């Protein structure tokens, strides 16, 4: 039934939450933030081995578990709540989805089993220095000589680009855009990110040998499909993060006393929390609707994905900044966790297009 998660899905939520609480509490997130790699490969392996999270939405024929996107909705909500540092979004939503969209059976057989097993970390590189997330302004060129493709140019804002085993690259060819895979022969420069829990890199290609994935000229369609899925995954993450902020705020407001009363008994705080609740529940509805649109292969998916990304971005950012406000000076300190959520919220607002971009897209994709 639409908007009702199955008992199995609810159980998955509890499992993921317990796993993250145990293996990746915020103390661990803070430790990983300071490392070069930015995540713990051991935990990423455990996610695959103990919970099979990487395999969830990958078809069984490619080594996956063959579940659908509703499972990913649950997983991303929990990962957002826990600020998990891991190349999961890049490998599963960007790379695996691009491969599945490509219809390239050989590539799927080569790459998806490793992604599903958590042994291959992959990502998608499409934006360039100008920060455009759609394909319209891609400059990186792919040329074919003697049947071999070579890439020349750069990519930026590549999530987990410094650590991925395989990078799928959208490049420009004579036929338009096309999807390629590379593993070596290019340089990777980590970018300094405001949100240290999600790493970005800039990649430089100079006649880098690459494998064409799918059909030449099909890159724009593939990219558009992946962008919708990415928007939905981010929206779910944002809902989880926003909820963590609200929970943190409410707990603090119950406990913290000023003027002889818990601050949560003052209308200034109560009403702020009520407004956060309203916005977060509305955002959750949008994120879930988008998840069901994927699961139901709804034609409205592009519109709903943009709606959800805009709504959830705003809800998360508002929740994060109000959380700092409710915590007062303490909330502005490094030692308090509020800023971790604030920075994730601020960054994911820009990631894959900001709210005003997605609001405009929502109307256009709704035929308005």
């Amino acid at each position, binding site marked *: *039934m*639409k*908007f*009702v998660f199955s008992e199995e899905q609810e159980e998955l939520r509890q499992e993921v939450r317990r796993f993250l609480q145990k293996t990746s509490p915020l103390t661990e997130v803070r430790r990983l933030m300071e490392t070069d790699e930015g995540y713990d490969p051991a935990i990423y392996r455990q996610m695959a081995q103990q919970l099979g999270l990487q395999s969830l939405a990958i078809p069984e024929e490619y080594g996956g578990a063959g579940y659908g996107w509703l499972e990913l909705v649950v997983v991303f909500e929990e990962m957002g709540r826990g600020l998990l540092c891991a190349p999961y979004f890049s490998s599963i939503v960007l790379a695996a989805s691009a491969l599945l969209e490509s219809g390239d059976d050989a590539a799927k057989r080569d790459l998806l089993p490793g992604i599903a097993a958590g042994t291959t970390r992959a990502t998608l590189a499409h934006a360039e220095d100008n920060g455009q997330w759609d394909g319209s302004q891609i400059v990186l060129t792919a040329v074919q000589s003697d049947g071999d493709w070579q890439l020349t140019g750069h990519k930026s804002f590549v999530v987990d680009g410094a650590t991925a085993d395989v990078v799928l690259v959208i490049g420009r060819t004579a036929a338009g855009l096309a999807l390629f895979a590379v593993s070596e022969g290019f340089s990777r420069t980590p970018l300094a990110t405001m949100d240290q829990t999600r790493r970005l890199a800039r990649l430089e290609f100079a006649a880098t040998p690459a494998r064409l994935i799918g059909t030449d000229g099909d890159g724009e369609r593939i990219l558009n499909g992946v962008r919708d899925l990415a928007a939905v995954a981010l929206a779910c993450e944002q809902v989880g993060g926003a909820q963590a902020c*609200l929970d943190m705020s*409410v707990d603090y*407001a*119950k406990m913290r006393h000023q003027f002889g*009363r*818990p601050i*949560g*008994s*003052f*209308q200034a*705080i*109560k*009403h702020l*929390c*009520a*407004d956060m*609740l*309203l916005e977060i*529940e*509305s*955002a*959750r*509805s*949008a994120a*879930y*609707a988008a998840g069901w649109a994927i699961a139901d292969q709804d034609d409205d998916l592009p519109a*709903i994905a943009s*709606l959800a990304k*805009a*709504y959830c971005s705003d809800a998360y950012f508002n929740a994060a900044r109000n959380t700092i406000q409710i915590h007062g000076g303490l909330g502005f300190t490094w030692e308090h966790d509020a800023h971790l959520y604030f920075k994730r919220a601020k960054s994911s607002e820009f990631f894959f297009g900001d709210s*005003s971009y997605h*609001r*405009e897209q*929502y*109307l256009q994709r*709704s035929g*308005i």
Partner: protein
Amino acid sequence: MSTPAQPDADSVRAEARAWIQSNWDPDLSLVEWRRRLVDAGWATPSWPERWHGRDLPKWADDVVSEEIRAGGAVGLPLGTGTNLAAPTILAQGSDELRDRFLAPILTGEETWCQLFSEPGAGSDLAGLTTRAERDGDAWVINGQKVWNTSAHHADFGLLVARTDWDAPKHRGLTYFVIPMHQEGVEARPLRQMNNHASFNEVFMTDARIPHEYMVGQQGDGWRVALTTLAFERKFGSLARPQYGDAPGRALDEARAEAAAHFETYKWYPQRAGRVDLVVSRAQATGKDKDPVVRQEIARLLSMQKAAQWTADRARAARSLDRTPGPEGSIGKLANSDIARQASVVHGMISGADGMLTGADSPLDGVVAEVLISVPAQSIAGGTDQIQRNILSEKALGLPREPSFDKDKPFRDVPHNR
């Protein structure tokens, strides 16, 4: 008492359908038909047999309603009598009150109004100051009520009044049925800023109520009022019955009844912002090309979609007998935001035409009515401020504000009159 075997929905449905097929007669008067329906127990099948029911489970009401609709027949009357008075009296009234009042409510022979809010007691309903004083076998009522739909033609009113000024505010109230057609009761229509007059003020000056018309115990009025308010939330939606255009006296009378009932609420869609008109209006004016307006339209439509999905989530949970989470209680506050944003967007689209009203203005005044009706959305039925209090306490568990007036004798509490 032995528990009777639980009937199943199919057999109830079949039995009701058969009865309706044999008994529905559009040429009866509406009252005659409803008497027949009530006497057979099909008007309120979940009620006790002793009072016009068939002792069936709660779901039977919906099943039978569907059959009445499917049979082209007419069901219960609309309004305060059916929605509030009947269930309150059934739940809290004495047997004498049930005998006296339930049947004429169900047949539509007697109509009702609700007399709770006062000019000085809105958000703080329990702070009401209408005075009820015992005088022999009767109570004498003095005070003023407000926001009373249909009070100008109702036969009876559901009244909460203060009978004990030394008790704390919630414990000095008593609940009564007041006969409206008496000299001491005057209902005056209250004109709104949008020119409609959906409500009345009711002035009671030495109005009298027989002692037996007390509902529940003396001093127990707040608890009884909460029962009514719970029914009010339940019947909050205003689905309009569809009688088509088939001929027949009962149908004619039912159509007239519905028209009269909904006349009061005809501005409610405007109050909610008429989001449905936004895109076509933008296209008609060319404002759909303006990127700034588009942002606001997108915000509006997103808010409305999200609110619909939130309602769907709550409905889905309830359909599986799960208690909805916070998504079940945010709708009212969301609707205020939506209405406000709709008003902004309608304004941006209308431009200079937004200064006009009536026939000179867009859509024959509908847009203008949106602009001057939306302010009610965040007030009626509990202000946004009260909603935020409730949400923060009920859904988030934040502490109540410390109270000053709950335990004091009401006469010592500062109040408006």
